[in-house]
């Protein structure tokens, strides 16, 4: 296959990822207004926070009636994986100045996965920027659409309450296939969170699951 053909294949795949994420953006917009955020607040999160899992985590805590600290902590803990992605992307993208500031915004699950899957740095850069662009356009359009529809229709009527846990599971699944430790950590996290739901404010079960992991890691390391 010629270089041009390879490149256009990468562009096509990258845009395909953007379209797939669009359905998820609709679910976010609708869930977000159902949780009590305005259409403008929901859209601003998608435009500038631009990291789906985190956005769902934050509005999930708000929807449950949780406090600001728990909502923010859940979101930022989940957002911390983007730091790791940026560290992997940095030597591939080699961006400086304004382009680095823009690349930072686009550092998410999808753009990282597409970039690191490419056989060469130039293709990695094509995959990163096109996936970022595709996801950005569709994620924001569908967030707005979902938020507008969600202001009119109860998201549960169109089944969006089932989408959120299924989407989190889809994000989790590739990590579970990485090893036995991952499975153990996931089971422990799930059990701790389930056990705490009735006894703690919304957001705290998820944070406690993470704290337990950190504590277990510290015990083992020492």
């Amino acid at each position, binding site marked *: 296959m010629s270089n041009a053909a390879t490149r256009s294949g990468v562009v096509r795949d990258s845009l395909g990822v953007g379209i*797939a*994420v669009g*359905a998820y953006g609709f679910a976010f917009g609708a869930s977000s207004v159902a949780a009590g955020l305005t259409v403008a*607040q929901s859209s601003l999160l998608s435009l*500038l*926070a*631009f990291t789906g*899992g985190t*956005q769902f*985590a*934050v509005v999930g805590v*708000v929807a*449950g*009636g949780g*406090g600001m600290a728990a909502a*923010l902590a859940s*979101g930022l803990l*989940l*957002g911390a*994986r*983007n*730091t*790791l992605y*940026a560290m992997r*992307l940095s030597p591939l993208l080699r961006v400086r100045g304004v382009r*680095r500031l823009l*690349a*930072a*915004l686009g*550092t998410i699950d999808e753009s990282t996965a597409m970039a690191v899957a490419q056989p060469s740095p130039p293709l990695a850069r094509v995959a990163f920027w096109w996936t970022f662009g595709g996801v950005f356009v569709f994620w924001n359009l569908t967030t707005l659409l979902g938020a507008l529809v969600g202001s009119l229709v109860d998201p*549960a*009527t169109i*089944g*969006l*309450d*089932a989408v959120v*846990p*299924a*989407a*989190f*599971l*889809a*994000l*989790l*699944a590739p*990590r579970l296939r990485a090893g036995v430790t*991952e499975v153990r*950590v*996931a089971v422990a*996290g*799930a059990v701790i*969170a*389930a056990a705490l739901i*009735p006894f703690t404010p*919304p957001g705290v079960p*998820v944070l406690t*699951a*993470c704290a337990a*992991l950190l504590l277990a890691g510290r015990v083992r*390391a020492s």
Partner: protein
Amino acid sequence: MNEWVLVIATIVGCYLLKLAGYLIPARVLERSHVRRVVELLPVALLAALVVVEAIGAGRRIELDGARLAGFGVGAVAVWRRAPFLVVVVAAAVVAAVVRAVYG
């Protein structure tokens, strides 16, 4: 709660977390303990979020048939390695249909 404060804090925090990765020297990651924690943290977090979103309703455990049916079908799709779009649409359609019929 002031939602605007939450929205702005989330935006600023998320952006700085992303930017930090371009500024931190790569050797920090080479410390295996740090790397392992960073890799496993999302696993614990996502697993907890799956459970809370599937069976939680504020401070109550709520076993909603339609939600669980949609989630179950979505989970099977994830297990069968279906594309993300299929997972999302299948979960929504099943939950909506079950709710319309039995709800």
